[in-house]
């Protein structure tokens, strides 16, 4: 339904130009949750903002049911605006401090629902939908708890009856207990309204819980994408493995920080990304070819796609000549107990 093609987004800053999103291809199917993970600064939010048409892309297309929405302006854009909505990371910052709960939820209805009484009715129904007591209707954001604020933001996002909701780290700013409530709510709403979610997160546990498919991003590019259980529990790309290995274990028997191998170093400067495979500066498997040649995102086992020179092709078993055998030996999906 939502298709992103060869999307490139740049940010111009005083220190130069950052290619924050570098040739991303993604599709989001009706009713599914696509998780997007990666370290901060890798371009997740920039991608989200480009999908929301808050940042114009340098090149590439964003198609909604076949219509390119990136160049739509004014009236032509209106039918598509309502169909893609967003929930921001920090519920305290994404609500206007002067708007009451009811007014905030009613606002996205202004362009389409002209009748005030009808709007009020819709707002009341939305508040029920996200589990906000009607008594909160006249409160201002600072008079709400973090969880309640995020419920308001969610109600506002689903108000225009969208097909796609972009969730940019919707629970990162919340406590564990509130996180659980909001995640449950998001699952319920998805079932009730058939929403498709682009779920951005850096907490692997949360993405693992929510996603149907997971895409992993590194320095503006997708390095691996596939079914959630494949990508999270048996990652194929060396970066995905490192990322999953860094995620805190579910219990003390599954891993202890003192003994595990953690990914060394930090994200390279996005102003001067390394040539070749952008991950080669931190990759434990890097070979000479990685420094010269950027790997393309190509099909690998289990129907996933991986951008790594060493990833075996799906037909690797029948056609071993394609990859150097010693390199391929190093390359075993990492299995981890859930």
């Amino acid at each position, binding site marked *: 339904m939502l298709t992103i093609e060869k999307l490139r987004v740049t940010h111009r800053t005083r220190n130069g130009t950052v290619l924050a999103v570098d040739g991303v291809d993604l599709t989001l199917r009706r009713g599914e949750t696509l998780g997007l993970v990666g*370290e901060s600064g890798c371009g997740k939010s920039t991608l989200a903002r480009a999908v929301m048409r808050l940042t114009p892309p340098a090149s590439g297309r964003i198609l909604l049911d076949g219509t390119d929405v990136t160049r739509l302006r004014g009236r032509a854009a209106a039918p598509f605006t309502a169909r893609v909505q967003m929930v921001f990371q920090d519920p305290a910052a994404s609500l206007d401090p002067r708007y009451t709960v009811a007014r905030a939820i009613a606002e996205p209805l202004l362009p389409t629902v002209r009748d005030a009484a009808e709007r009020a009715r819709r707002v009341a129904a939305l508040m029920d939908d996200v589990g906000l007591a009607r008594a909160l209707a006249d409160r201002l954001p600072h008079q709400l708890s973090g969880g309640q604020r995020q419920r308001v933001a969610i109600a506002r996002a689903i108000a225009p009856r969208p097909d796609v909701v972009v969730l940019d780290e919707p629970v990162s700013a919340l406590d*564990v207990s509130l996180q659980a409530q909001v995640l449950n709510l998001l699952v319920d709403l998805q079932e009730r309204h058939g929403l498709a979610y682009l779920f951005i997160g850096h907490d692997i546990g949360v993405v693992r819980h929510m996603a149907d498919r997971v895409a992993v991003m590194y320095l503006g590019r997708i390095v691996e994408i596939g079914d959630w259980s494949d990508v999270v529990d048996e990652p194929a790309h060396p970066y995905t493995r490192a990322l999953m290995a860094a995620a805190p274990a579910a219990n003390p028997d599954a891993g202890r920080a003192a003994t*595990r191998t953690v990914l060394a170093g930090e994200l390279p400067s996005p102003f001067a990304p390394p040539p070749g495979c952008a991950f080669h500066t931190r990759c434990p498997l890097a070979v000479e070819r990685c420094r010269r040649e950027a790997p393309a995102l190509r099909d690998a086992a289990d129907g996933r796609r991986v951008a790594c020179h060493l990833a075996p092709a799906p037909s690797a078993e029948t056609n071993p000549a394609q990859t150097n055998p010693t390199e391929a030996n190093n390359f075993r999906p990492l299995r981890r107990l859930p």
Partner: protein
Amino acid sequence: MKANNPLIVVRDLSIAFAGAKAVDGLSFTVAAGEVTALVGESGSGKTVSGLSIAGLAPPEARITGRVTLAGADILGRTPRERRLAGHPAVSMVFQDPQAALNPVLTIGEQIVEAVRADGRTGARAAAARALELLDLVRIPEPGRRFSEYPHRLSGGMRQRVVIALALAASPVALVADEPTTALDVTIQAQILQLLIRLKDELGMALLLITHDLGVVAEAADRVLLMRDGRLLEDRGVRDFFDGPRHPYGRALLAARPGRRTRRGPRPRLADTSAPCLIGGEGSGAC
């Protein structure tokens, strides 16, 4: 669990702000060479407890009870008073490394300042010690980083500097308040590992304040579970994860995402907000 003799003993600690109790009758011990995790949801009183142990509680806090460090009563004394009284130091690492560093001083200047706070170290010795500390927290090229300003460093590097600052007083115990919350997963793992290695190398006690049960599973030896200013559980970490006795602890474990399996439906996350979970032991009725 090792049967160490406790380094820090907290007895009946209560902290009130303008009449409202933030912490209510807290008792626990922290052993040297161990990671004790203080867990609980927002507002449960973790930070104020940590602050009062480190001697940094805000002046408007009304604190009662008893906190001893290696037998000496330290409650209500600021770090400076403790130093002058000859007590060993308890240092604090905060959540937000951005806020914990002075933006107009270089990394080196800040660490030198912290080292010289004892009033006995000369400028040259302090600079040498600062370099040593930067090396200790595994900052690459400490000589170059020494004269950099905090804004030039990444979040992970800043947190390393904050830890170096905390180590400047040669503490016997470190209170780390959500030291990884503001950081990325990969950097979180690095910082957690660093803290544990430092604890082992320097033989410190580490009181790790967090609301992230994953961090607890990774790092803690003992778990203290708090809610509404009260201590609900004090258990060894494996014990805790095998099955907390308190219903709130159980609900908290069941509220974590990530227990999903490839087959079967997505599990529902537990709701930990039920007030009957606060009731204390034996309120299993709900």
